[in-house]
């Protein structure tokens, strides 16, 4: 057993431990720490495979940015309540472990009996060092053969960002007001829905007994409670009672 294999096994072992920590830990923050541990060890393994640039990216982007993002959200979400619902599904856990074990067996069988290998490329250690290191070689490959992919990635990240902004931004007051103004005229004074006479009126009708339609195709829906007054229908839809 060479030294290389020894180092690899060590790093791989810690990485797997970290991964197990992600799955087992009760507290999501601990899971995140396990994830970082696993990622860092994988980054070190990349160094063995002469993928220096990838190792750096792994540390900065993955272990850095993404995990920070995850922890950030974790903190935003009621950190006290988080561990409470851990476990309590023994059947599911058993099935999951069973399936995981079976798939591991299958994949391991495929790996160990593999006698097929692809067509090798020109990037031996010599050629890479000739061109000036992994990063430079990677850069050249990236910007000659994978231009389209780079540009598409930019668009993908843009799309994802727009999606996230739309979903995560707080509802502005103007948004609520606009929803109210454009969709309904809501009044606290009357029973909800004149067309549902079976509902008993919560409050007396106004003296002239008439509710004027607001015009412009808007219909009047009358709220029974304050919460109904504040909760407008969702985007383009009426709340189903």
């Amino acid at each position, binding site marked *: 057993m060479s030294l290389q294999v020894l180092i690899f096994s060590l790093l791989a072992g810690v990485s797997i431990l970290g991964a197990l920590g992600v799955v087992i830990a009760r507290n999501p923050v601990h899971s995140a720490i396990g994830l970082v541990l696993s990622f860092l060890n994988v980054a070190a393994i990349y160094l063995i495979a002469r993928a220096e640039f990838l190792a750096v990216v792994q540390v900065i982007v993955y272990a850095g940015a993404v995990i920070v993002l995850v922890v950030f959200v974790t903190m935003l979400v009621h950190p006290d309540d988080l561990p409470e619902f851990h476990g309590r599904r023994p059947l599911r856990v058993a099935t999951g472990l069973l399936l995981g074990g079976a798939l591991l067996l299958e994949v391991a069988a495929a790996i160990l009996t593999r006698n097929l290998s692809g067509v090798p490329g020109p990037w031996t250690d010599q050629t890479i060092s000739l061109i000036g290191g992994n990063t430079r070689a990677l850069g050249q490959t990236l910007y000659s053969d*994978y231009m389209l*992919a780079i540009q598409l990635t930019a668009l993908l990240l843009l799309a994802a960002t727009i999606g996230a902004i739309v979903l995560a931004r707080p509802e502005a007051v103007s948004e609520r007001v606009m929803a109210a103004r454009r969709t309904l005229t809501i009044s606290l004074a009357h029973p909800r829905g004149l067309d549902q006479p079976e509902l008993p009126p919560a409050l007396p009708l106004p003296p002239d007994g008439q509710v004027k339609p607001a015009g412009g195709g808007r219909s009047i829906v009358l709220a029974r409670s304050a919460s109904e007054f504040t909760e407008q229908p969702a985007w*383009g839809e009426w709340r189903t009672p």
Partner: protein
Amino acid sequence: MPLRLVAPEWSLLVPPLIVLGTIVLLLAIDAVSERTARRFALPLALAGQLLALGSLASIDWGQGATTFGVSYRADWFALVVSLIALVAGILSVLVSAGYTESGLEPGVGLAEYLALLLFSVLGTMVVGAAGDFLVLLLGLEMSAVAVYALTAFARRRLTSVEGALKYFLLGAFASAILIYGMAWIYGLTGSIKLSDIAYTLRTVVIPGQPVDPALLLALLLLAVGLGFKIAAVPFHMWTPDAYQGAPTPVSAYMSVVPKVAGFAAVARILVQGLQPLSDQWAGLLALLALVTMVYGNVVAIAQRDLKRMLGYSAIGHTGYMLAGLAAFTTGLAGDRSVGSVLFYLFAYTFMNIGAFGVIAWLQERGLGTTLDDVAGLAGRAPLAALTMAIFMLSLMGMPPLLGFYAKYYVILALIEAGQLWLAVAIVVMSAVSASFYLRVITQMYFQEPGGTWRPVRTPLLGLGLAVMAAATLALGLVSGPILELAQRWPAALT
């Protein structure tokens, strides 16, 4: 080794670039002022897609030219996928228009909504034209990520978020499996270019002989990942939940375009890249097709929510399309399998977006989405009821509507490939599906109306519905040229 920077053939990229330009403009006007965005976003999105549709004519697809190495292929297959994606995009924008028209839309986020929708269309076009795994994957992800966000767009409603979350978690899970499969294929062939993969595999795989287990593992991981994208049983379970939870125009959209992207990916990966393994995957697809069409159509019977019912029926239609792909035979010169699926997708675009569009139309009039809500629709809104009836009958496969031709060509492909049993299964399942499609019609025509009715004017949505109904009625009569176009794929993929 000096850096080789080769200028790409930009003219081949004109249609996706127009879509991209539209997205940029949408975001720009949104940044300028919200009011401007509200007024111009819809026309802009429509115009941009129509322009892109027109620009498809500017490219000579017959040459099968490639650019960015072989990463981007402008061939017949790409043309048909782009065509379907753009048509679906335009129709979805029309269906979404109802929200602004009826005054139900809060008016915020319209530009972002349309930008995301166009991103998804763009991603689908990229998948159709992809020449290697990387571009294909990025296209698929772009299409999916945008739809995840769109599904949650009615974020004030919990079900919308719930549907989006389920879709997202499972989608990311399936993506990981798909990428794992790609990694395996890369390792076993040494390339991520589809043409190289096919070339290498041809030297390795001997027809009729068992193959290396690793290769099979890779194939199945890919099949699972792709099976999720197209909602094949047993990877389908997100479908009904996401369709029901999403805002209805988004359901309309996501029932078609991600499926188009999924089938384009299946065709590119399996039919083009892994063609030497067709003995292995054709049987798998046939099996999945059978299970999928039986499950989807049977469970749809038990649904009362129309959006959910259409979700299950979409699974059933996936089964029919998979059956069309399972008819793939390398030996046949005039193989019809992929062509029949492309035609099916084309037909499906009109009738399914149409069916969801009618539901959106009803929602804007204050109704819900269950079967009871369409009761007596014929008395209230005869044209809407007629339109819905047309879509239902077409989805059922009633001649001479478009849906009939779609099924007919799939069955024809199956018979020519000698897969009679799948053809029979399609016919039987169409009969089963009649029970739930016809129930909608029975409800509309023989029941008394209930619930509130809120008269609003939605001209653009109405226009969209009219176009789709007319297409469903009439396109069967001119199916010849479209089918001919769809059948040109062998030049592209083999």
